[in-house]
């Protein structure tokens, strides 16, 4: 990606200047149940600047912007726009205050034209004809002023993603937005489209608009923003002018020093290669390539950690290894068996000894309406232990579930209880128990402690290390850097679908990993 700086950054508003900040937040606080998503967040964004908002997943930046745009209501705090206090209860109010938002998932009607999408809701009269004609004129003016060229009569679903995003920006500008929030805009763009976007943002700034860029990609922050605010765990931890900082410094602030749960473990003694991945390319449901040319080996008796910010291909890689997604290219060799060429699905892989604890236990790993014991056989329901000629062996299933619950301290130890009645930690322990029960040689684990309370976290971590000591191989995918650092013997980092680096556990530091996770190559500052 080329550097896009075309003109010098705008001067931060000096106190003598009469212009109030475009957006000022004072003490914004928000809880979702036990989760404290925003902790008394306060900062100001100057007019006519591009302001970056960075942080890891779960840092609270999306929640904050959703509050500004009216999707959520803050529990406490105030929002000031251009020097005036505003009460934003729904998007309508935000739009009226001059705030526009481009979401990560576009809100477009696929079979409408660009023009129709832009005017939806502000058609300018009962009959379309006049309103559309006037809109067309206005949009052509906007296109000229901001370099936002989009074919107005093209049908949206035929446009490439980059142009679709421009439609969203047009929508905001058409509604006279002065402040434009972009939420992870480059997640779906090619490098070229990203360049074009940044040129456009520069033009917007030139015209006096204010842009808030919410992202985790540090290179982009350095390339196009004037100031940057760093959030971590719901609070603002740092704010600076972009020219006074570096990617490394930002990464350090992003990742920070949290309480690390270091698990006591002896050094690993890796044995033979159990799983070999070669040149793997995986596309998602929409045909977008999510994993590019991934290759690595997994040995018995080691925990291989896969670090990275969510959305960089780890999920697709995991699903391809488990047999849920079929790779478009490459091969996976497990104990000498070519899984892709042989077309082995999840059931066959389990029988061979490859188990999978999925990242999202509610969406994929369990059936919420089923009882605990029914969940305890998910994926193993056709095994002889639970089956006699097709008939399920109720007593064996119940006994098996009781045993799992005992061994993994699942509470309450009631096999007949509906799974949704268990806490997240107990659900996860049951899933783990299920996958480990048939003594797999390789265990794929995704986000093992997501939504799990502290006590269960410790338990699960100890179990995983215990497996590794017994000679099994584990692939651990987690967005929690602490978890990776605490458990893994070797760490791979994924960024943008590629494995960008490998670090031995002894040499791994948060800064090093953080930089790799943010896409910074070795040798860059």
């Amino acid at each position, binding site marked *: 990606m080329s550097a896009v700086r075309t003109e010098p950054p705008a001067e931060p508003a000096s106190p003598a200047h009469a212009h109030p900040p475009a957006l000022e937040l004072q003490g914004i606080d928000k809880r979702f149940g036990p989760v404290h998503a925003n902790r008394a967040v306060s900062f100001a964004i100057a007019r006519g600047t591009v302001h970056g908002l960075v942080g890891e997943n779960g840092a609270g930046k999306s929640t904050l912007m959703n509050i500004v745009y009216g999707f959520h209501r803050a529990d406490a705090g105030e929002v000031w726009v251009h020097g005036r206090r505003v009460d934003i209860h729904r998007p309508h109010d935000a739009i009226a205050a001059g705030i526009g938002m481009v979401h990560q998932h576009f809100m477009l*009607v696929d079979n409408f034209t660009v023009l129709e999408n832009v*005017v*939806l*809701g502000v058609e300018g009269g009962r009959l379309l*004809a006049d309103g559309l004609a006037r809109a067309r004129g206005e949009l052509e003016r906007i296109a000229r002023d901001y370099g936002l060229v989009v074919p107005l009569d093209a049908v949206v679903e035929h446009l490439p993603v980059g142009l679709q995003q421009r439609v969203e920006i047009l929508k905001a500008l058409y509604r006279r937005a002065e402040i434009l929030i972009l939420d992870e805009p480059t997640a779906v763009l090619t490098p070229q489209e990203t360049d074009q976007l940044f040129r456009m943002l520069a033009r917007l700034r030139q015209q006096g608009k204010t842009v808030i860029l919410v992202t985790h990609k540090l290179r982009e922050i350095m390339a196009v923003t004037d100031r940057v605010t760093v959030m971590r765990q719901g609070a603002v931890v740092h704010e600076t002018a972009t020219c006074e900082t570096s990617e490394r410094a930002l990464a350090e602030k992003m990742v920070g020093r949290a309480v690390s749960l270091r698990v006591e473990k002896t050094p690993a003694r890796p044995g033979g290669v159990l799983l070999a991945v070669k040149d793997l390319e995986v596309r998602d449901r929409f045909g977008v390539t999510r994993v590019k040319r991934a290759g690595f080996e997994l040995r018995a008796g080691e925990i291989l950690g896969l670090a990275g910010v969510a959305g960089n291909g780890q999920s697709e890689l995991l699903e391809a290894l488990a047999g849920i997604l079929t790779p478009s290219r490459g091969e996976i060799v497990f104990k000498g068996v070519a899984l892709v060429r042989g077309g082995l699905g999840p059931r066959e892989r389990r029988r061979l000894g490859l188990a999978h604890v999925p990242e999202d236990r509610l969406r994929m790993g369990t059936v919420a309406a089923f009882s605990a014991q029914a969940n305890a056989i998910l994926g193993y329901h056709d095994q002889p232990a639970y089956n006699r000629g097709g008939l399920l062996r109720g007593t064996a299933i119940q006994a098996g579930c009781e045993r799992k619950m005992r061994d993994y301290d699942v509470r309450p130890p009631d096999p007949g209880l509906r799974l949704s009645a268990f806490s997240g930690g107990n659900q996860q322990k049951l899933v783990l128990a299920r996958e480990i029960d048939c003594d797999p040689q390789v265990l794929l684990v995704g986000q093992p402690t997501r939504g799990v309370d502290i006590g269960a976290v410790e338990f699960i971590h100890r179990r995983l290390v215990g497996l590794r000591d017994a000679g099994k191989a584990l692939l651990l995918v987690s967005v929690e850097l602490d978890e990776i650092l605490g458990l893994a013997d070797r760490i791979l980092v994924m960024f943008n679908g590629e494995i960008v680096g490998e670090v031995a556990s002894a040499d791994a530091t948060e800064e090093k990993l953080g930089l790799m996770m943010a896409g910074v190559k070795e040798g860059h500052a």
Partner: protein
Amino acid sequence: METYTLIVLLLAATIRVATPLLLAALAGMFSERSGVIDLGLEGKMLGAAFAAAAVSAVTGSVWAGLAAGVLTSVALALLIGFACITHRGNQVVAAMAVNIMVAGLGPSLALAWFNLGGQTPQLDAPGQRFVEIVWPWAERARETPFPGLLYAELLSGHSLVVYLAAALVPAGAWVLYRTRFGLRLRAVGENPAAVDTAGISVNGLRYQAVLISGVLCGVAGTYLSTAASSGFVRDMTAGKGYLALAALIFGKWRPYPTLGACLLFAFTDALAARLQGVALPLVGVIPVQFILALPYVLTVLLLAGFVGKAVAPKAIGVPYAKEQ
């Protein structure tokens, strides 16, 4: 000459049979475009047919009957809407329930009020039915086969509702594609979240669509009992509601293709009556049931993708719940 007359008469019959189908299909179009499956066309038409015939018989005025028919159909539509839109109930079940209920309610009330075994009294007094409107010089024109017969049979001689239905096609297209309401309606059937974020009420739009459906079904049902026949008999819709739905799907939810589909289906109906027992060259006698089943078979073929693609409004059938 014989054949020519036959064809013209056939086409004229087609127009008359197509009218209730077209009205119901247009009704379904508005509802389904907004994302609400309209399986209740059958019940709404039947209810309207009963109400129109009953009121017309009692008051002596077909216009009162029309009003009653429309009101009944609208009430039923709102009932389904209440269950599906406000309470996010299953749209298919709610519609089937209303269809079944109306099938029993019409004859029940008819029996109780008129004691004729489940039907309404014959509408034979003047003003109780929609009668054919004969255009000027139609009788004279009939004598010249071309274009006189066309004028006399195809254009002239239909009841008011037929002309209304024909006018509703361009009117419906205009509303759907040239008004603000139509734009929003189509949007809410494709991506209700986009409409919601634009600050427009999703449920409000859907209720309006369901209301329009109710009105049009009301006219369709009224036509059945006060123009096509002279009274209500049980089950008189005989599946026309489902046929209209099939025509709507066949017409890909667009006004003019739907008109084409309705004419096509109506034509098979008129043809079936004509061809009964008649031996055709090469194929012999086609069983009438096969011809009557043709619209349904065509619809299945369309849905299977063999006769082009039918893409329903993307959000159809899914009750809208705001994200978290």
